């Protein structure tokens, strides 16, 4: 059933790409392909903006955080209450106006023409391509993983996986990759690359509209189902108040006498602990030899809340003749271990940090991050250069405000309740969304609905990947080739090169994640923080301060990017992993914005003013 839903969904996506291609045929290729001829109307503008903003993180990483840390994540995401007014309102009107005066199609092009400086344009292009590629990698991986979850257990899909495995085993480059992941990655990537290449910006916008609607419906349906199944929100919060975080243990599994010689249990299987009423959930697949020899210890999750334990006990397979013996001391959370109420209060439980998940300074960082990092993303700026007129912008802000309220706050409610319906998801909490979709629809007797609900995160990832793909290819074609290599290129040459670059960038993105990167959410935050840190303040100064100079903007881009990279490097050397260093507990993005602001202001002050005519062109007679 999920496969049918997915098939219908993909068919619609391709149909929209074909229609977009037909509509755009009569128009100038570059402007149409990269910016939809600057004629995007209300629904398209609002939903393409919202759908691009709600990337895979919103439906994978975010639910996982809510599940893991509880109600405190409502505070973590609270900045979204003003995102529509800030991220969409702050720059859009001026950006669109200046973009029109400059005749710019891309963000680097806008900067280049505003200052008549090739240096600023090239610098901006390099930064966009550098950070966007990290984004693209993360989204390709997220898309493949969601698809693998969606198709898990579908017989036809399993046959394909086996076929792919038999073909790829032993091949160079892809021989060691997991067959199911590889298959999903290729299908996902080909779908997105084909419709983006074929339909350009207009196809991306139209599919974003459809994907935005799918996401909205998915969240509303889940909210209704979850509230019914937990007996109301009050009841759910009361139960959460009684919950304590699980513990991490190592267990040795042994088979009951009389069981078969070899028993295989999948990752996520539930097993009773010997000599008590405890249950554990296995963190990896297990093969139990019933030969009298001791099996190897594996990692598992020990449930500690009585009500969750009760629910988990029902999940232990009756025909699984296996029990677990806990080895050594169970490892508790660094903050919240054995403590009731941690899921309904700040700072929220945390496995690693003894000060909990969210303190005031970090909350401040994220309140700034969601708004200003959003405003500083070139992928959003491009959309702000594409709306038709200011009434479209004003109504879009209203629509996006309602849309984000409809998505983000309900997601917090849904996934705090998930802890009650789905104990033990800590072992792979990134999959809590598809698991919830399956459980909710199964409990409600409407399993066919699961396909639609799971299409929501898939739509979120797709709508982000297509935009990023277009942004990187526009950087190469428009900002490098047309601007610096062949300014007199014919439309036919540009068209051919655009198709080649879009496909090449997509293929490179796929190759980069054949062996998936480990730190998906960290990669997304790094890339968006980097782009926001590099572009937010330079763009604000460019649009609102006539005294800004090209060198000032260049200093802002470089200092913002370097500050972020340095803080990530310090974090890397401190922890040995891809983690940022939080000076005064503030996210590196905040520091990169501060440093960038100072750099632009002082460098602009000490460098010669831009010509008066250029100033008047963009600001009028002040």
């Amino acid at each position, binding site marked *: 059933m999920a496969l049918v839903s997915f098939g219908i969904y993909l068919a619609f996506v391709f149909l929209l790409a074909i229609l977009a291609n037909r509509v755009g045929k009569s128009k100038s290729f570059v402007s149409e392909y990269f910016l939809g001829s600057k004629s995007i109307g209300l629904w398209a503008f609002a939903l393409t903006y919202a759908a691009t903003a709600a990337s895979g993180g919103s439906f994978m990483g975010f639910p996982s955080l809510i599940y893991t840390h509880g109600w405190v994540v409502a505070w973590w995401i609270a900045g979204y209450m003003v995102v529509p007014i800030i991220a969409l309102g702050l720059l859009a009107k001026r950006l669109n106006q200046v973009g029109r005066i400059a005749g710019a199609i891309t963000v680097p092009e806008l900067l280049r023409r505003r200052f008549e400086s090739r240096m600023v344009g090239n610098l901006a292009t390099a930064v966009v391509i550098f950070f966007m590629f990290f984004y693209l990698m993360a989204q390709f991986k997220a898309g493949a993983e969601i698809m693998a979850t969606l198709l898990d257990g579908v017989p036809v899909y399993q046959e394909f996986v086996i076929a792919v495995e038999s073909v790829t085993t032993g091949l160079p480059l892809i021989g060691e990759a997991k067959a199911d992941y590889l298959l999903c990655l290729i299908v996902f990537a080909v779908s997105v690359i084909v419709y983006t290449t074929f339909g350009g910006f207009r196809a991306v916008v139209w599919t974003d509209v459809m994907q935005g609607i799918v996401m909205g419906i998915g969240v509303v349906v889940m909210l209704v189902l979850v509230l019914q199944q937990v007996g109301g929100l009050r009841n759910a919060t009361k139960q959460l108040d009684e919950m304590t975080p699980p513990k991490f243990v190592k267990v040795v599994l042994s088979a009951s006498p009389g069981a078969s010689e070899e028993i295989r249990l999948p990752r996520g299987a539930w097993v009773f602990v010997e000599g008590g009423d405890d249950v554990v959930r296995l963190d990896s697949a297990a093969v139990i030899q019933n030969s009298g020899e001791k099996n190897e210890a594996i990692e598992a999750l020990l449930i500690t809340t009585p009500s969750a334990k009760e629910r988990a006990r029902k999940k232990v397979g009756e025909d699984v003749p296996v029990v677990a013996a806990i080895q050594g001391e169970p490892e508790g959370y660094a903050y919240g271990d054995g403590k009731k109420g941690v899921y309904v209060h700040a700072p929220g439980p945390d496995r690693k940090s003894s000060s909990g998940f969210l303190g005031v300074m970090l909350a401040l960082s994220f309140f700034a991050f969601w708004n200003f990092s959003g405003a500083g993303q070139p992928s959003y700026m491009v959309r702000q250069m594409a709306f038709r007129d*200011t009434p479209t912008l004003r109504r879009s802000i209203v629509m996006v405000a309602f849309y984000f309220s409809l998505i983000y706050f309900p997601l917090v409610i849904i996934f705090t309740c998930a802890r009650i319906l789905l104990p033990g998801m800590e072992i792979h909490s990134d999959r809590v969304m598809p698991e919830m979709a399956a459980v909710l629809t199964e409990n409600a007797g409407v399993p066919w609905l699961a396909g639609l609900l799971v299409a929501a995160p898939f739509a979120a990832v797709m709508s982000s990947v297509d935009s990023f793909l277009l942004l990187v290819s526009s950087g190469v074609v428009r900002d490098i080739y047309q601007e610096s290599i062949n300014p007199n290129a014919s439309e036919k040459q540009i068209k051919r090169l655009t198709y080649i670059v879009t496909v090449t960038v997509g293929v490179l993105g796929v190759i980069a994640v054949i062996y998936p990167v480990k730190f998906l959410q960290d990669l997304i935050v790094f890339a968006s923080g980097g782009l926001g840190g590099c572009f937010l303040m330079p763009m604000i100064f460019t649009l*609102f301060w006539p005294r800004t100079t090209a060198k000032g903007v260049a200093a802002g881009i470089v200092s913002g990017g370097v500050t972020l990279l340095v803080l990530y490097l310090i974090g890397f050397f401190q922890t040995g992993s891809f983690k940022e260093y939080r000076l005064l507990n503030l996210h590196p993005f905040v520091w990169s914005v501060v440093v960038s602001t100072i750099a632009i202001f002082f460098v602009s002050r000490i460098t010669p003013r831009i010509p008066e005519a250029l100033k008047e062109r963009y600001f*009028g007679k002040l």
Partner: protein
Amino acid sequence: MEESQDGEEREDLAASFRQSRKEFRFMLVTWVVFAAWTLTYNGLFAKGSDEQPVEIVLGMPKWVVFGVAIPWAIALALTVWFALFYMKDTDLGEPADENGGGEA
């Protein structure tokens, strides 16, 4: 004649720039107000007490209602008012051609 037309356009552009700057300042103040509300309220009340059960309002912890849900609802109302009544329409000019030609 052409010169005066050009001068008028520059005046219009300057006026629309000043209006955009005014809206920009309003948006920044909005951010500061709501950031201060959520950070102050939640900083004071979200931690709760170890002994007392959580206070529930509208099915949620009380601090979520007063520190997130209510400011969110007010921010939504303010956004609607700002976008529909405060923000002014501006003539953005014709979409420029790809070679840099365009007028505000």
